[in-house]
C-alpha cells in the first residue's frame, strides 16, 4: 500500500513541483513570493477547459491556449503591477501580488461561475498493474510531461544565453545591467516561463481530478509555496525536489494518520523547515542584500 501511496504522491508532487518552479524562479530574480502565481495557474486550467469543452477544439490546442494566456497574463501582471514598484520594499510587491490573486480568482468566478466544471481532457484512462502497484495513463502522462519540462528548463537555465542572463540578474541586477544584460527583458522572460510552467501545473491538476473550480489556485498555490520553502527559495533543483517531497509526504501522512491530516502536512513541513533549516534543503546560504 505504501508503494501505491508513493506513486500517488509522486504524481501530485510533479504537479506541485511545476508550480514551485515558477515561484522559485520569480523569487530568484525579484526576491518576493508572487502570490498570484497559483491563480495564474488556475486561469490556465480554465482557458484550457473553455477551449476544450465550450469551443470543442482539440485538447492539445486547448492546452496550448491555456499556456499562452497564462504566459501573457504573467508578463502583463509583472509589467503593470511589479515593475513600477521594483525599488520599493519587497512587502509592497507581496501585497500587490495578493491583490492580483483576488482579482484573478474573482474574475474567473464572474465569468465561469463557482460550480465545479468537468475537464474533458485525458478522460480515457487505462490502468496498468506493476506488481502490487497500479498506475494509470493519466499519472504516466503527468510524470512524463513534468520530467520533460524539468529537463528542458534545466537545460535552458544552464546552457542558453537567456538562462545565463537570468542567473546573472538573480545574482546582481545592477552589475548585470552594467555588463549589458537587458534586465527588464530578462525579468519579463522569467515571468513568462514561470507562468507557462504554472499553467501546465494548473491544467494537469484539473485533468488529474477531472474537474476545475475557481479555488484551485489557492489550493495548489499553498502547496507550491511549501515546496519552494522546503526545497530552498530561488533554487531550481530545490523546487523540483521540494514539490516531489511534499506530494509524497502528504500521501504517506494521509495513510498513517487520516485523510484530513493530509492537507495540513504541507504547513507542518513549512514550520519545521523554517525552524531547523530556514534556507531549505538546496537553498544557498548566501544571498544578496
Amino acid at each position: 500500500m505504501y508503494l501505491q501511496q508513493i506513486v500517488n504522491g509522486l504524481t501530485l508532487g510533479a504537479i506541485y513541483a511545476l508550480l514551485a518552479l515558477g515561484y522559485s524562479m520569480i523569487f530568484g530574480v525579484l526576491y518576493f513570493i508572487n502570490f498570484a502565481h497559483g491563480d495564474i495557474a488556475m486561469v490556465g486550467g480554465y482557458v484550457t477547459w473553455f477551449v476544450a469543452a465550450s469551443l470543442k477544439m482539440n485538447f492539445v490546442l486547448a492546452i496550448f491556449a491555456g499556456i499562452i494566456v497564462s504566459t501573457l497574463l504573467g508578463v502583463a501582471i509583472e509589467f503593470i503591477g511589479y515593475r513600477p514598484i521594483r525599488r520599493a520594499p519587497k512587502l509592497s510587491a507581496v501585497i500587490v501580488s495578493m491583490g492580483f490573486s483576488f482579482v484573478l480568482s474573482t474574475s474567473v468566478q464572474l465569468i465561469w461561475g463557482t460550480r465545479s466544471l468537468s475537464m474533458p481532457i485525458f478522460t480515457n484512462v487505462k490502468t496498468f498493474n506493476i506488481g502490487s502497484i497500479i498506475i494509470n495513463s493519466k499519472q504516466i502522462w503527468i510524470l512524463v510531461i513534468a520530467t520533460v519540462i524539468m529537463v528542458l528548463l534545466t537545460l535552458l537555465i544552464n546552457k542558453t544565453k537567456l538562462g545565463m542572463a537570468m542567473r546573472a540578474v538573480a545574482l546582481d541586477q545592477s552589475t548585470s545591467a552594467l555588463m549589458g544584460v537587458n534586465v527588464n527583458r530578462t525579468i519579463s522572460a522569467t515571468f513568462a516561463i514561470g507562468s507557462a510552467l504554472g499553467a501546465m501545473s494548473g491544467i494537469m491538476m484539473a485533468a488529474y481530478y477531472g474537474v476545475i473550480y475557481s479555488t484551485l489556485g489557492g489550493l495548489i498555490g499553498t502547496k507550491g509555496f511549501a515546496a519552494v520553502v522546503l526545497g530552498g527559495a530561488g533554487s531550481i533543483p530545490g523546487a523540483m525536489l521540494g514539490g516531489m517531497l511534499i506530494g509524497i509526504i502528504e500521501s504517506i501522512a494521509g495513510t498513517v494518520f487520516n485523510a484530513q491530516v493530509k492537507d495540513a502536512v504541507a504547513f507542518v513541513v513549512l514550520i519545521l523547515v523554517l525552524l531547523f533549516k530556514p534556507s531549505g534543503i538546496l537553498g544557498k546560504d548566501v544571498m544578496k542584500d
Partner: protein
Amino acid sequence: MKKTSRIIAILAMLAILFTMAACGSEPAAASSSAGSSSASSSSSSASAPAATEADTYKIAVALALTGGSAEQGNEVRNAVKLAIDDVNAAGGINGKMVELVDYDDQADPKQAATVANAIAADESILAVVGHTNSSCTLAGAAIYNPAGIPQITCTSSSPKITDAGEYTFRLWNSDAYTAQVHVETIINKGYKNVGMIYENNDYGLGAYNVAVEKFKEAGIDILVAESYLLGETKDFTTILTKMKSAGVEAIFAVSDETELPMIMTQAHSLGFYPFVTSTGAYSTTVLTLGGAEVEGLYGATFFDPNNLPEGVAAFYDRFMETYGVDAVVSPAVSGYISGCILMDALKSGATTRDQIRDYLDSGLTFDTMVGTLQFDENGDVTIPLTRMVIKDGAFVGTPD
C-alpha cells in the same frame, strides 16, 4: 543567512495568513457577485409593481446560493419562488403580494450565522426557508429560535436538527432514516467488507453515527471510515488506496454531487471498482461530471425516476420550463412544498411569525406531491425513499 531566513519567515507567515484569508474570502468574493445578481432577481420575484413594505408579506430564503452546495441551494430558492409566484399571479393574499428575499450563506456556518442575524433584525420577515447544509441550518436555528422566526429547511438531514428548537421545521428526511436505507442497500446486496467516506460536518457525522449502529446490528464492522473537508478536499486517492488494500467491496459515501464523481473517478483510476451507494447520487451534476465513471452508482430518491407520480411530473416540466434547465432533483420538490405550505399558512390568516409557527405545529396534514405530510412533535417529516441506480447515463429505479 540571517537576512534570508528572516525574509522567508515573513513570507511564510504571510502565506499562512493569506491561505486562511483565502479560505474565508474567496467564497465571499463570489457571493458579492451572486449577491448582486440575486438582489436583482429577488426584486423581480416581488412581482408586485411598486409594492411598499407594508403591502407585502416577506419570506426569506437563506441558502447556499454560492459555494460547495450552491446547486441544491439555488434549486430550492427557485422552487420556493415558483410557489410564491403562483400566489402573486392569483392576486396575492388578502390583496397583499408575497415578497421573496434572498440571503446567501455560501455553505459556510459562520456566514449562516451572519445571515440569520440579519434576518432576525428585519422585523418584516415572517418566515425563513433555509439553510442548505446541516451545519448552517443548526447555526441559523440557534438564532431563529430565540428570535422566534419559523424556519423550514429543505435539504438538511442531520439528526441533530430534530432537536434544534420549536421554531425549526424540516421538510426533508433525517439521516437516521436516509442512512438506514443506504445501509440496507449494502446489506441486502450481501457485502460484508464495508467502507465509508463522509463529509466532516453535521451532515456527514450524523449519517456516520447512524450507519455504524445499523451495520453493527447486521454484524458488520466498517473496515475503513474516513472523513474529508467539504469544498477543500479534492484528492481522495489516499483514502481510496487505504480502502482498496483493506479489501473494501462496498462504500457508503455521504457526499455532495460535486465530490461524488471525483471519488468514483479516482477510485477507478486506481483500478478499484467497489459497489458505491451515496446520499448525493440523485443529481444531474453527478451525471455531467462523472460520465461513464458513475455507472452503477446507487442512490435513494423520493420516487422512481421512470415512474413519476402525476403531480411530480407536471411540477418537473414546469420547473424545467421556467428556469430553462434539463432536469430537476429532490431539493426542488421539497422547496416547492415548503413554499406552498408557507403560502397556505398566510392564506389561513397566520400573518405573524408566531402564528405561522403555530400553524406548522398544529398537526395539520398537508396533501403534497410526495403524499400526505405532517410535521411531528419535533418538526420533522418522513418522506418514503426508493432506491435508484445510474444506468446508461440516466437514473433508473430499482427494487433492491
